[in-house]
């Protein structure tokens, strides 16, 4: 029965959020709670010679100043600090030693009775450094970029570039039409609204309850156990609500380590809240230099693709994602080659951010495809259609479903693409040049092992629980929709519990993988509930379901119904009463065994209109159409919000976002959301989201692919391509600010 799946449903947690009833990590209280304020390094590299906290300690209300000099013991092996998403290397250890590895590194925690006192005292901590030369500029180090070592071990084996095919160099050299270009994306930060925070409640007996801002409560729980050598039963991590993550909360952040250190040292409950400025050292989208070479036949078929990516990481961990692989996967092309190199800088480790690898890799590819279309004198959409592939080109396997062609057609029609005049600078509206651009988007359809518990009560209510997070995307709501349909109950009878490390297993929430995973997890567990109900129903005298097999019944409208004969039914309440059970509890794990025979991806086609003031270069994105194929859409309303948010982010990526580093100081200089610019309402006009029908019978039983991230892919390229079409000016480094149009 699917009464709720697919319908536009308002968030079930919406009321709690707007009334303040929903509590976030920094809003929990405990008796005797004290407050920590973080002191950070002002240099990018070197050693701490001396920390003088004497003035801070003299301030009334200050309890302690913790640093590497006086902290309690912490684990001394890298493995203890490796969380489930850690890349290869030696993870950062907060307050561990005197070494400074990046500017803004936490080096002390001032703990006081009030947050204001802690913050004041933190400003009085004096630090002497032994400074060493640092490098934070990717361009200064690009010649020393190191190639990735081939690895057979995940995650490196997953994120390394795919195998090459054919001979891209030869094919490129002999191609009749060629394009080569270098594309740059600067460091960008996630900037979630909610500041990172941890409230550690000292429960006595060494037990801790931790309210932490995170995308993975069990990940943080294991990490804290590892770093502080604690027993799993002694650490409970909670994150019921999150004010935006976008990947910044996949790894445990340093605030939780500092708060636990202080709680243990003082045997008191402690809260640590980062400042907005401190949010700019928690990981970032790596700066990247990408070079793309495309060779084609005059008719518009691709002969050669080479995609080289140089991406930024820290000196202590090698974070990377597969930027280059998308190029060879997406379009039909016999020869493809990939190179990925890393530049290690004196910065924190880069990390996942909204559609990591595709947001950036496909940006470069889709700008290059636009340039190739110009060289071929072909309509950009027509070029994509001529290169269309029904198979995953990297692995040469079919897709479980791919409705990209429908995205192109429906998107183009909604946009009015056929009215585009091909020449740059040929469309105008008064003082403004008008440009139309398009791009393709592609992202994974990932699924992860997950466990779900359902407790069905005899009053027809069910509690569904899983340790996953709702980072603001609407997970509570889609879980309730799926559970209501799978259990045949009204949605208001469903209670969702998540964001608690004691709940059934879930990996971190990321990669747009939770909707598909948890929904199918609910379906699997609901099967077990249904089986148990059938067992009870069969025991009833003259049971109408006496002969029904386990696959011949379904749950609908509060009843267990025979599918061959809907007139045979037993109400859930009757079955449970008769069986004298007041609750049925089932917990099942779902693993998503994949035989690897099919590719799983989501796709999109993005069309944009920009208007550029001819004299002044002021750019306005006046229209965006994003047609998305992402399997079954669970909730049109929250899904549309996800895609709209992603489109806005894509506009920001194209026009605004850039973390400004002063390389003399090795420091982020625009560490606030006034100077780090993201689009405001005035920058966002008409956004039309289309969900293309995409049945997928094999990806999972509900046909769900998951979305959110797919919405950003292609947007920056479509905007950049529209700006070229408007102005005749090709800007290959983001963000496209008006001064770059003048050059």
């Amino acid at each position, binding site marked *: 029965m699917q009464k709720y799946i697919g319908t536009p449903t308002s968030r079930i947690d919406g009321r709690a959020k707007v009334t303040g009833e929903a509590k976030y990590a920094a809003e929990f209280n405990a008796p005797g709670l004290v407050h920590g304020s973080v002191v950070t390094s*002002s240099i990018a590299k070197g050693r701490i010679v001396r920390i003088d906290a004497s003035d801070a300690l003299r*301030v009334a209300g200050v309890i302690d100043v913790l640093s590497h000099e006086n902290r309690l013991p912490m684990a001394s092996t890298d493995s203890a600090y490796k969380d489930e998403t850690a890349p290869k290397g030696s993870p950062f250890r907060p307050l561990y030693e005197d070494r400074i590895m990046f*500017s803004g590194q936490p080096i002390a925690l001032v703990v006081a009775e009030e947050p*204001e*006192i802690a*913050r*004041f005292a933190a*400003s009085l901590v004096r630090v002497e450094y032994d400074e060493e030369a640092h490098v934070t500029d990717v361009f200064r180090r690009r010649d020393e970029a190191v190639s990735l070592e081939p690895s057979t071990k995940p995650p490196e084996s997953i994120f390394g570039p795919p195998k090459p095919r054919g001979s891209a160099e030869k094919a490129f050299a002999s191609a009749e039409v060629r394009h080569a270009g270098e594309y740059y994306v600067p460091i960008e930060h996630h900037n979630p609204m909610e500041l990172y925070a941890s409230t550690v409640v000292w429960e006595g007996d060494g037990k801790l309850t931790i309210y932490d801002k995170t995308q993975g409560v069990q990940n943080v729980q294991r990490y804290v156990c590892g770093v502080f050598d604690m027993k799993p039963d002694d650490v409970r991590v909670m994150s019921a609500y999150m004010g935006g993550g976008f990947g910044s909360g996949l790894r445990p952040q340093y605030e939780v380590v500092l708060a636990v250190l202080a709680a243990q040292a003082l045997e008191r409950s402690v809260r640590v809240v980062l*400042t907005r*400025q401190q949010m700019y050292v928690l990981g970032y989208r790596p700066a990247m230099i990408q070079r793309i070479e495309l060779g084609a036949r005059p008719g518009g078929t691709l002969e050669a693709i080479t995609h080289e990516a140089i991406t930024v990481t820290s000196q202590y961990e090698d974070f990377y994602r597969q930027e280059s692989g998308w190029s060879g996967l997406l379009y039909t092309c016999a020869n493809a080659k990939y190179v990925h190199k890393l530049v290690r800088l004196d910065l924190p480790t880069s990390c996942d951010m909204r559609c990591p690898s595709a947001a950036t890799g496909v940006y470069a590819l889709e700008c290059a495809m636009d340039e190739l279309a110009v060289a071929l004198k072909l309509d950009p959409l027509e070029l994509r259609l001529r290169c269309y592939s029904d198979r995953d080109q990297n692995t040469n396997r079919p897709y479980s479903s791919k409705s990209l062609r429908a995205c192109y057609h429906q998107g183009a029609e909604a946009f009015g693409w056929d009215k585009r005049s091909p020449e740059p600078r040929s469309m105008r509206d*008064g*003082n*403004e040049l008008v440009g139309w651009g398009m791009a393709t988007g592609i992202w994974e359809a990932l699924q992860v092992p997950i466990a779900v518990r359902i407790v069905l009560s005899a009053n027809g209510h069910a509690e569904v629980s899983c340790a996953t997070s709702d980072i603001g995307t609407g997970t509570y709501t889609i879980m309730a929709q799926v559970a209501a349909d799978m259990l045949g109950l009204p949605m208001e009878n469903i209670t969702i519990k998540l964001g608690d490390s004691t709940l059934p297993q879930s990996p971190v929430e990321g990669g747009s993988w939770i909707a598909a995973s948890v929904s199918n997890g609910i379906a699997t567990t609901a099967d077990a509930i249904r089986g148990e109900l059938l067992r009870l129903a069969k025991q009833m005298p003259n049971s109408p379901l006496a002969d029904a097999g386990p696959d011949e019944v379904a749950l609908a409208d509060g009843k267990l119904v025979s599918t061959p004969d809907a007139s045979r039914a037993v109400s859930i309440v009757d079955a449970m009463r008769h069986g004298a059970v007041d609750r049925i509890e089932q917990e099942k794990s779902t693993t998503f065994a994949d035989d690897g025979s099919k590719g799983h991806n989501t796709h999109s086609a993005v069309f944009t209109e920009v*208007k550029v*003031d001819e*004299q*002044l*270069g*002021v750019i*306005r994105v006046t229209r965006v159409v994003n047609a998305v194929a992402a399997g079954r859409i669970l909730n049109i309303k929250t899904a549309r919000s996800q895609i709209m948010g992603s489109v806005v982010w894509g506009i920001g990526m194209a*026009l*605004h976002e850039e973390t*400004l580093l*002063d390389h*003399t*100081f090795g*420091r982020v*200089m*625009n560490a606030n959301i*006034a*100077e780090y*610019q993201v*689009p*405001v*309402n*005035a*920058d966002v006009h008409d956004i039309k989201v289309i969900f293309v029908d995409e049945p997928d019978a094999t990806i999972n039983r509900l046909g769900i692919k998951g979305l959110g991230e797919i919405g950003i892919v292609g947007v920056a390229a479509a905007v950049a391509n529209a700006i070229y079409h408007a102005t005749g000016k090709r800007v290959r480094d983001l963000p496209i*600010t*008006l*001064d770059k149009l*003048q*050059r």
Partner: protein
Amino acid sequence: MINFEYARASDVADAVRQIAGDPGAKFIAGGTNLIDLMKEDVERPSRLIDISRLPLNKVEETADGGVRIGALVPNSDLAYHPLIEQRYPMLGSAILAGASQQLRNMASTGGNLLQRTRCYYFYDTATPCNKREPGSGCSAINGLNRMHAILGTSEACIATHPSDMCVALAALDAKVQVIGPAGERTISFADFHRLPWDTPQRDTNLEPNELITAVELPAQGFRTNYTYLKIRDRLSYAFALVSVAAALELEGARIKEARVALGGVAHKPWRDALAEGALRGQEANPANFRRAAHMLLRDAKGFAHNTFKIDLARRAIVRALTQAARGTPQSQSNKKIR
């Protein structure tokens, strides 16, 4: 942020008395900039003297046909005040080009004059900055200076004044009324803000123990031929790369009086008597506008990341004068540039 004392001034005389008695004290009105600076430890006042309840919140006509704006009139109230909307629409437009609605609701008229530069280095106490710490050096000259000044810079400082409202006030020849221990005085707007020279720590010629009580506008408001054109990196809630307040008094096709003030290019709203003089008596046409624009920028000097501002400013001036002459001022809600 440091611990500080808080006191409320009972009247203007009390405010002046209190600040004269405590060299570490600062006045606070809306606090939209001061609180930020305190959080960053850039401003470390020992005491805040709250003047927000003083009776300086009237907009009234003066005997000579002008308008007197109390120092505590909120930016929003001022922008939408009938006297301003009808007689000085350029001022209202400039105010609405700045900040956000929430900030404009809090920000006061006097405070707007005293807001400090948004130079990244001024805000970050881990870096040298002559404005914050005289003698420590200017990090912006060889650093991130895309937002910085191209006119009137010194070797000590290349910061810009961030206000939009002040650009319009400069163009309107406003006057600033202040009161201090020695009594009242009036400062012409051109003399209110300073160039950085070798004392960039001083933004204005206001003495530390003086209080702004009002801003006075002369009778001429340029209500017909004016504009405020602001060019920035996003379409709202961003400081100007370049902004232009342009006002003309026309007699037929000829320019009788011209005012051009630039924002985002200098340590103060930038005016140029020669360029304005060259427009007077001339026909309002693109060639004359371009000539004036070139004159205004004749001494402009760019740095590594901001040379684009020189040409951008020229183009913006021409466009602004065109808008003013046509009587089609830039809308602050529709972001399409007219």
